[in-house]
């Protein structure tokens, strides 16, 4: 396949970025999207030009590192997969492909297609855990959990923290990401004890970091590579309301 790549180049966080066109040729339909970028980068290195920087690691759709906005969609045109799992057979010979980084204020660009997603870690550090220490916990089968709840919790826990939900949202809202964690723990008896504090702390941190509000466009669910349902946002809203109403007075 012969393609034209229109790629966002930006030297550093403070620099002004711009699109640059790169022709690539002889790309196999069986190559993955990132392997196609590897081919481009090899040729740039040999020409003495700076290769395109992008985050990637496992290349099997689970680490959440890759984060490309392809032809106006996070992780590109195919449904339910990450950029690294996308193969070139999803594109047409001769096509121009536009590649941008995630664009959201809380995810500043570091270089080219790399962005800083440490805001997600900060939200988890604010409460995305169950406060147990190592050791001294009950037997794993001491508390039976209805299979339906365990399965729903797993659906939420499948989140890979890539940030596609934020990139897809016109408000740069992190609701789906936060809701997935809140929902996972709210569904499990182990997580219920501190559910109120958790949802309050995580939502407060999310707002503080500059993520926008949810206006129910469902773009996040549509673009989520793990197809996490917006029903988790509904569960989080319920949890949040209960937490606000029942919060102890200062």
């Amino acid at each position: 396949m012969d393609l034209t790549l229109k790629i966002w180049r930006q030297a550093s966080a403070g620099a002004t970025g711009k699109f640059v066109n790169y022709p690539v040729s002889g790309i196999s339909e069986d190559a993955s999207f990132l392997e196609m970028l590897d081919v481009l980068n090899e040729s740039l290195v040999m020409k003495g030009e700076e290769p395109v920087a992008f985050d990637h690691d496992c290349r099997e759709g689970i680490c959440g590192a890759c984060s490309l906005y392809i032809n106006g969609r996070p992780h590109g045109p195919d449904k339910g997969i990450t950029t690294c799992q996308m193969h070139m057979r999803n594109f047409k010979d001769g096509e121009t492909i536009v590649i941008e980084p995630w664009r959201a204020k809380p995810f500043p660009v570091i270089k080219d297609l790399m962005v800083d997603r440490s805001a997600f870690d900060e939200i988890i550090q604010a409460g995305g855990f169950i406060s147990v220490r190592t050791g001294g916990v009950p037997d794993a089968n001491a508390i039976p959990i209805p299979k339906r709840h365990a399965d729903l919790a797993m659906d939420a826990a499948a989140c890979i923290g890539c940030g596609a939900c934020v990139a897809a949202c016109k408000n740069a809202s992190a609701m789906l990401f936060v809701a997935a964690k809140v929902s996972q723990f709210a569904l499990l008896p182990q997580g219920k004890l501190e559910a109120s504090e958790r949802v309050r702390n995580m939502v407060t941190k999310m707002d503080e970091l500059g993520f926008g509000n949810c206006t129910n466009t469902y773009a996040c669910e549509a673009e989520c590579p793990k197809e996490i349902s917006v029903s988790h946002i509904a569960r989080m809203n319920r949890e949040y309301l209960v937490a606000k109403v029942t919060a102890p007075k200062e």
Partner: protein
Amino acid sequence: MVKLNAKIPAGPLAEKWTNYKAHQNLVNPANKRKLDIIVIGTGLAGASAAASFGELGFNVKVFCIHDSPRRAHSIAAQGGINAAKNYPNDGDSIYRLFYDTIKGGDYRAREANVYRLAEVSNNIIDQCVAQGVPFAREYGGLLDNRSFGGAQVSRTFYARGQTGQQLLLGAYSALSKEVGSGSVKLYTRRDMMDVVIIDGRARGVIMRNLITGAIERYAAHAVVLATGGYGNVFFLSTNAMASNGSAIWKAYRKGAFFGNPSFTQIHPTCIPVHGDYQSKLTLMSESLRNDGRIWVPKSLDDAEKIRKGQLKPTQLPEEARDYYLERRYPAFGNLVPRDVASRAAKERCDAGYGVGSTGLAVYLDFADAIKRLGKHVIEARYGNLFQMYEKITDENPYETPMMIYPAVHYTMGGIWVDYELQTTVPGLFAAGEANFSDHGANRLGASALMQGLSDGYFVLPYTMQNYLADQIGVPRFKTEAAEFEQAEKETRDRISKLLSINGNNTVDSYHRKLGLIMWDYVGMARNKEGLEKAIGMIRELRVDFWKNVKVPGTNEQVNPELEKALRVADFLELGELMARDALIREESCGGHFREEYQTPEGEALRDDKSFNFVAAWEFTGQESEPVLHKEPLQYEFVEVKQRNYK
């Protein structure tokens, strides 16, 4: 000659760990605050260790190479984690898990370590459930189990096909809790450049900031390396792109012995290689062997037709198929250990029965299971794996058998550690895949997650205190010390040298060449002639690399090519040590198969008289040969036998 002391506690096997804990030294809470620990890596071992140290009250600095600790490659483990819970009431016990692991490792692991691993396996499951890890459950609300290779019981806990992800996110949440509370300081996008040794003890590290290129110094009372394995020396492997051997290689060069470097696991069920642009290989979980049946055509003629696309596998009648694992190993069938399954696939393909366009593939067929259980059951068990397979290959595994072939997956070898997970450098510890300790010459499925979390949650929090107990009077170190100065200078010189070569070949081109040498001569089957040839070829390639590699850009920027160049430079040294280790081990055991040493049926032939030891290699200088030390393995509690899965 240094005498290796594994520091195995006295007493009967089942009481060793209890005895150790009862008599070890502890550090009181007021003193813990004065002690600093550095942890490199945030996979299962690193994240769980850092979180646990933080909870105990130590000051912890934890470093990861990614933008977030949640991205460590533990996340990609699919199938499950073993534990001796015996919830299914099918005859499991701590002893049986221990025994299966020792036997699976082909009697090349330490009894005491493996027993401890089996012993704490149950605590791991309890811990993870308490953290909110959503393991698979039955309708009654209790935990579900499945089977993995090398075991006749169902002891594997799982979270769909994403067990590693869920366990890592559990450890990451524990770590995040400690980062939030301030006991652990997190440093992301950092690569370890060197270990700093002062007066014979590990006292700090040199890190490179991957965003700014800053070379940074950090001091501590102890350093833990939890940086994973070095399978990427083969270029194509199931490891993530950034997985590397540099941290442990630097430790080796600073005096930590390297244990069994040649012990590599080739995983039988990976998506076959296609195309020379390929950057990595994708694993299809071993759990698939619970329900999938492995076969190739019985006749060479059919195999030929399939390769040419004239015949489809679904058209081949039952009697024309050779279910070779079921035929050769009726007792374990498709669930033989990984090394056995991989070699059997290679044997069939080498004999001309392979399928796929390259002939380097065998079928993994779910037709029987779908008929027996229904498509929905198979979808519930393996849905994400089937989807992943379809995205990569463009074939629907519900309708046509999967094609698989062995690929490099895991390294049993690693930094030599004693029972306390301490290396030969005092104060330097190694955990998880980075150490050599628990899997002998072959790791059983679902045991890597177990070992990573065992080391981090339940072993290091004890053994670290035993080390630090006599360090309470040692004040915090200043990073101005001459040893830091020297280590930083060496790092800067190395980087400057790489950037100044400006040759004609990319870093990846060297990595690919190294990978091919390793796969051809230090891969699934090895022999004396090939290994000697490989050593020469690697040396030549290394010389060429330092003359002709092209690394663009500068140090003071985001520079992925420089990151890769630093790693490949280390792989070019590590690869040689692997070949050397494989050369001196004149026997076959587990994943190490020397063609000269096999039974008439083609099984691995161990030589317990001469090779019942851990090979621990000591670095003696860039130009001089490494020195081999032997830690004899004593089997007091199990009878050493020829492995038999028939």
